């Protein structure tokens, strides 16, 4: 386990360094003069020169790259051009908001997708399998922006079951702002012991989380079905079957857990995919998370913010991969044994 940890840690470090350099290139390859963007359209030549000096744009490129990487390591990620706030504090706060959304989405995906896959495997070739196949195909292929709009119109505007957008009810704004500690509304509400904020936060999270969960539901269902069908032919399952266990008991007690390898492997990929999806979903549902921050940064050609977002997403993705790599042997001891 330690070997895996060290190996993966070193790999992650190399990838992080590469992403850092890539992010630096982004800041220098973006069209336009960063100093002019910073100083505004009517800045004088003197002001432009001052800003250029302040941003270190007068130094040679390799020196700028070295300074950029060392600044990143020391926590100085620059100042966002469009918010005028430190990028690291912007990005980390926004990331927590997105993380909450993505976590709820993946929970929903697991709670719906895995049982759907089990259903399909359990009754392979029969109506439940057809239903699961159709559902997962539709969910995996539907454009999320369209799905979001549809849910907003149907569930929020027509049926009024859930709020249209936002993170909490506007009447709770002052409470929510005062409670902000982790930028995760549910956690903040729990810390503050505010039930109304928790319920409001949850009701605002459900719809965007469902939209983000659409593709993972389909993917989890298909992977679970495939994995389960494979495991069902394995020796220990055949033995369980021979002893007369019900099919339900065989699936839930003996077959499902070792079938989860592909789902776990996909989880890191899906996490990255879901983070990417927040770019659209957060805009639509008015979530002030990393996705909407990235969209604003791109629109404003805010190089430090774009680079910061890129690095943060990459680091989060690496962390998710690491967690999954470590979790797989826990779920499947055969891998743990193989690692020795």
């Amino acid at each position, binding site marked *: 386990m330690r070997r895996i940890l060290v190996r993966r840690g070193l790999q992650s470090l190399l990838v992080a360094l590469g992403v850092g350099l890539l992010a630096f290139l982004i800041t220098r390859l973006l069209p336009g003069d960063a100093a002019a963007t910073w100083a505004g359209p009517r800045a004088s030549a003197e002001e432009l020169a001052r800003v250029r000096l302040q941003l270190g744009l007068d130094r040679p490129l390799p020196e700028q790259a070295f300074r950029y990487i060392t600044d990143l390591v020391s926590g100085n990620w620059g100042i966002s051009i469009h*918010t005028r706030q430190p990028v690291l504090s912007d990005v980390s*706060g926004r990331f927590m908001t997105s993380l909450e959304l993505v976590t709820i989405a993946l929970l929903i995906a697991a709670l719906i997708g895995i049982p759907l896959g089990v259903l399909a495997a359990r009754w392979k070739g029969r*109506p439940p399998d057809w239903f699961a196949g159709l559902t997962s195909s539709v969910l995996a292929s539907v454009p999320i922006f369209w799905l979001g709009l549809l849910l907003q119109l149907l569930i929020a505007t027509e049926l009024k079951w859930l709020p249209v957008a936002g993170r909490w009810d506007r*009447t709770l704004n002052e409470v929510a702002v005062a409670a902000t500690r982790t930028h995760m509304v549910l956690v903040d509400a729990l810390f503050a012991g505010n039930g109304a904020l928790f319920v409001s936060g949850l009701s605002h999270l459900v719809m965007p989380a469902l939209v983000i969960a659409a593709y993972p539901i389909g993917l989890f269902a298909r992977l679970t079905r495939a994995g389960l069908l494979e495991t069902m032919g394995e020796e220990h399952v055949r033995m369980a079957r021979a002893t007369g266990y019900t099919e339900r008991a065989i699936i839930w007690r003996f077959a499902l857990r070792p079938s989860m390898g592909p789902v776990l492997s996909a989880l890191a990929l899906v996490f990255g995919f879901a983070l990417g999806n927040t770019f659209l979903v957060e805009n639509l549902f008015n979530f002030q998370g990393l996705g909407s921050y990235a969209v*604003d940064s791109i629109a404003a050609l805010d190089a430090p913010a774009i680079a910061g977002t890129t690095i943060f997403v990459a680091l989060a993705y690496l962390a998710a991969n690491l967690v999954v790599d470590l979790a797989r042997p826990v779920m499947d001891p055969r891998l743990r044994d193989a690692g020795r």
Partner: protein
Amino acid sequence: MTGGSRQGARGRGAPNLYDPARKRTWSTVPRRPKEEEIVVDHRQPPGPPWIRTAALFVVAALAFAACGGSTPTTAPATSSPPASGAPQPSSPAATPAPVDTTFTYANHTQIVTDLDPATSYSNEVCAMHDIYETLTRYDAVTNKVMPALARAWTSSADGTTWTFTLRSGVTFHTGRAMDAAAAKAAIERTKTLGQGAGYIWGAVKTIEAKDPQTLVFTLEYPAPLDLIASANYAAYVYDTDAAGPGAGEDALVAWFKTGKDAGTGPYTIASWKAGEEFELTLDQYADYWGGWDGVHYTKVVYRVVPEVTTAAQLLQSGDVSYVDRLTPQLVGSLKDNPDLQVVETPSFQNVVALLNTKSGPLADPNVRKAVAKSFDTIGIASALGGSVAPATGVIPRGLIGYSDSLTGAGLDLEGAAALLAKSGFGPGGKPLTISVTIVSGDTDLSLITTSLKSNLAKLNITLDVQPLQWQAQWDRAKSADVAKRQDVFLMYWWPDYADPFSWFFSLFHSEETPNFNLAYYSSTTLDAEIDGIQALTATNRDQAAAEYVKMEQQLIDEAVVVVPYVQNYQRVLQASVGGFVDNPAYATVVFAYDLTPGP
């Protein structure tokens, strides 16, 4: 019973399939099940089990729906549609709905970039005019400058001395009195810093506080200071001692950065949370000089809603009072909603197509004039529906110098072909390619280029449309290498105060190094006229208007600029909001104090 049998099956010494020493039981070889666990044919389950499972799914979905139904929505206390489909009481005997005195402004971008009233020059302007006040305010309905912090003013005959009489009894939100000395200190700081729109005070030589209520400006050259003092940016009067008397400039800058304000307006900042959805909240300022008699909004909330479809739905659900910008299609779909009102007002913002007069094919006046005659301004405006109106010249309606009698503009492909023939181009002549740059992602500008491309194709001209990010578009236009510059530059322009001067000075006055004169036009005659126009505006507005018309005609005759259209503001707000008048001089500002909240 089943649970009990499962317990029994776990970890009772059953052998492990992979590692006998391991205590975990996931893969233990199962013991023989009890009788009740055995089914007759487990590989071919009969129909009912999956139907039962499906039924479970349906029940779970219904339970979710039921839970969702009980979840409180964000509907406000008033003016919202009924929740959960419950019928709204409509009988006259029903209790009147309480009045919601919170005005929620949905803005499509982040609100605050800079809260320092001297340097603020961005989106926060929508809130700044509710926090700060200016000496005068431009009334776009009467097209006159109206009193604000100054209740009266006079100017000398030559327009170089302006005397403003200030209101008495006005206090800053910091508690200090607003008098001539305070106003002088604020305007001097804004002018000295010279950032953002601070240049508007460029004509001011000295400011004197003659007495607490009298402020005298002496100008370097004649300028319409009453108009300048009503500017959208950089004209605010604020307390320069907000950070403490003698605290210094750095302390004041830092003080503003913490989200505090030092204005005299009806509202003061209650909270500012950068990056949050409810970014800025203003509370009423109890000691506002205008008083709080009658019904007013007591709180103004600025909510960031980037997606227009979401903003439209928030309007319908009653979660926001006002949306600054929607697509014409969405506005059209909301027009019949009895809970909402749509207000359409011509703006002071137009699109200008600047034709390259210095290099490339358009340096030839015949080609340039032919291209100018290929803009189908009527067709473009028609295609864009209610969001734009055809322009008659550079100056939008409502500003000095507006004229609907300018000649020579408009679609004339026959005339264009005749002009091109003189230079050997056009149908049957040499083919020609010209480039146009626009801001990428702007569908309205794309429509202009599509229309132009289609018309130019008939004239044997290929239009190379190049969508770019603004900064890249602008940098390319300013390139020292003239070969890199575009032939046509499309962009939006609007004034910083209600005066057409900025179009002429910024876009058409000669520049040694191009900045915004991206037609690269240079005319000593026009330069002289532009240099004298502010003095004329200060002393004789009728004559100034005639001079502007003359300058516009020159620009059209020489095909320096084409103005495809003027934008219309399409605001959608709750029907319960009373007294809303869109003032194009303050493009994104809603003067919340002037509104009346209704049930």
